[in-house]
């Protein structure tokens, strides 16, 4: 029984760590898609952020500069994306694919040029990363049964960026639903001409949506390379950008729901390795690949309209022409 509790705690703990980059990228995806821009390039922005964070942290020894750098890199990619699909009204998917390619190439090329390690950045020492933080009262609560354990194992002890990510979800939700910017952003994804006729600039709104997304992806990238990991490795985003997109769709383009989807996908990932040794009743041994494919399968089923009807923003995918 105690063992089961620990297993669960461990699983949830791992879930949070896996889900952190997902939820940040999902928030980014929600902002761009809600403004009417299909965002296939979450992957590329994530990767760029990871690379720049690790590089700057390694060169300067400062995690904070690394974080700033990651955000800048990701925002620059977003601006490029915007330049192509907003200003020049290019196809949003094509420009997104281009961003991903550029990120894949540039991160390794620049990495080799600077560090000459075949694309990797040097491993960061403890001081150059975001270390786990013990929250207040951890010791005091140790004597409380159950809750104390949960507090120590699950809630406390994550790196700063995990808490930042968890904060980003309600922040994103607040901005989207309670601020002027959020109202206009949601409006422009439904009907750009209504926004135009209300006297608000569609172009500037969409650029801002992309920039906000860039910030979130930058933080996610920094998490990958200077918090969760200790350096940058080529293609270290490993498809997380696409899973985040799946979470956005699964959450029906709403921050809180997407957050739960990220947790769910993170959970699946976390227990994959555990389940390999366990024989589930009826099913037998579950192939690890099936588990890793589950987020995609679920998204496809959702998209086909078999479980609920996804309702994307009405004007998504169409460049705005007066």
């Amino acid at each position, binding site marked *: 029984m105690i063992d089961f509790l620990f297993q669960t705690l461990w699983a949830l703990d791992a879930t949070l760590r896996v889900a952190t980059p997902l939820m940040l990228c999902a928030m980014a995806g929600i902002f761009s898609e809600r403004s009417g821009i*299909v965002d*296939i390039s979450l992957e590329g922005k994530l990767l760029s952020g990871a690379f720049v964070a690790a590089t700057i942290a390694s060169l300067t020894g400062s995690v904070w500069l690394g974080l700033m750098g990651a955000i800048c890199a990701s925002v620059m990619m977003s601006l*490029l994306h915007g330049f*192509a*699909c907003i200003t*020049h009204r*290019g*196809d949003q*998917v*094509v*420009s997104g*694919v*281009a*961003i*991903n*390619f*550029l*990120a*894949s*190439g*540039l991160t*390794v*090329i*620049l990495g*080799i*040029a600077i560090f*000459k390690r*075949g*694309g990797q950045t040097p491993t960061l020492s403890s001081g150059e990363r975001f270390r786990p933080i013990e929250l207040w009262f951890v010791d005091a609560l140790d004597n409380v049964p159950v809750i104390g354990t949960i507090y120590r194992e699950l809630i406390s002890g994550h790196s700063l960026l995990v808490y930042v990510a968890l904060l980003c979800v309600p922040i994103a939700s607040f901005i989207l639903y309670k601020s002027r910017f959020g109202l206009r952003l949601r409006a422009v994804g439904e009907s750009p001409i209504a926004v135009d006729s209300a006297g608000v600039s569609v172009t500037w709104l969409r650029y801002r949506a992309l920039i906000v997304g860039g910030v979130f992806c930058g933080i996610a990238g920094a998490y990958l390379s200077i918090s969760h990991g200790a350096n940058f490795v*080529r293609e270290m985003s490993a*498809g997380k950008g*696409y899973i985040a*997109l*799946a979470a956005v*769709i699964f959450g029906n383009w709403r921050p809180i729901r997407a957050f739960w989807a990220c947790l769910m996908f993170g959970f699946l990932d976390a227990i994959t390795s555990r389940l390999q040794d366990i024989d589930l009743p009826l099913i037998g041994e579950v*192939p*690890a*690949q*099936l588990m*890793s*494919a589950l987020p*995609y*399968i679920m*998204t*496809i089923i959702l*998209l*086909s*309209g078999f479980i609920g009807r996804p309702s994307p923003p009405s004007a998504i*995918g169409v460049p705005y022409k007066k």
Partner: protein
Amino acid sequence: MSVIKPLPRWADLILLPFINLCTAFFVCGIVVYIIGENPWDALMVMLKGAFIYPGSLGYTLYYTTNFIFTGLAVATAFHAKLFNIGGEGQAYVGSLGILLATALFAPFLPALFVVLLCIICSALIGAAWAFIPGYLQAKRGSHVVITTIMFNFLASSLMVYLLAGPLIQLGQQSPQSDLIPESAQLASFETFFSLFGIDITSSPLNLSFLLALLALFVFWVLIWKTRLGYEIRAVGKNQDAANYAGINVPKIIIITMTISGAFAGLLAVNEVMGVQHRAILNFTAGYGFTGIAVALMGRNHPVGIFFASLLFGALFQGGAELDFEFQSITRDMVLLIQGMIILFSGALAYMFNPALSKIFNNITKNGANDD
């Protein structure tokens, strides 16, 4: 207010893409310069590595074969205004078709039939992998871009499971299938030419290159010479008018995606039957995504696709040479070039259009004034 005339046809089809290509290379050249190498030298090494050095042409054309298949896949879908990003997955599962066909037919049938059946089966499985996203788009409105991306990941998971599990070659640690029987293996060009006593340098280039050329021809006939092709193009250009003309738009969407997947599936013929002689992990290695760049550059036309495929084949092979000769440059440079080409030939394709139109307008105006 004067009306700006559209660009003449030749400028639109050749000059503009050429300018976009040059811009892409120019920006890459800047990156090369920033990391401390000479862009011109790099370009020369790439060219030599792609065409001049012994065996290089063979390698280039081997890559070209793959790009023709994936490029055709994307181009077919583009004609119906559909974006098939699923080439990777469709090509990957195409290999299952080959393995299946060899298992079923190789023991009983002569080599020629086995090869033909393998080709058909790889196309069929690739088609099936694209059929579902096509169906979902046509009947349920699910965006084909998202579903094909998901299916790529599904293919990846599926193949890892199969190649590391049920299909694994006994005794091997790395995930790969058994060797396919000799009757299913396609001869390389080297072998083929040696039959005639001609000696050429060894390379992975094999007879599937001829299949690729045939596929280009079939594509041309299909899109421009058949009624189905007419309907596909109509749906791509104006769905309302297609409706008016009595065309069943959902049906065309499904058929187009299926054909698209079939082309992608043929990539497995090159890799599995012609080169590796087995299914290995990740043999699609980015060919599917490159197909997007190929289709965009080639303007969805067989001649354009051939030359774009050749360009990318040269890039891949030249990239390998770059990697070899330069300390600070690896094959990842190709990814950068690819990204730039997709950016300038795809998303920003018409960025230079206004400037170019003005130039042409001025030329024709001056020409008229001379009369």
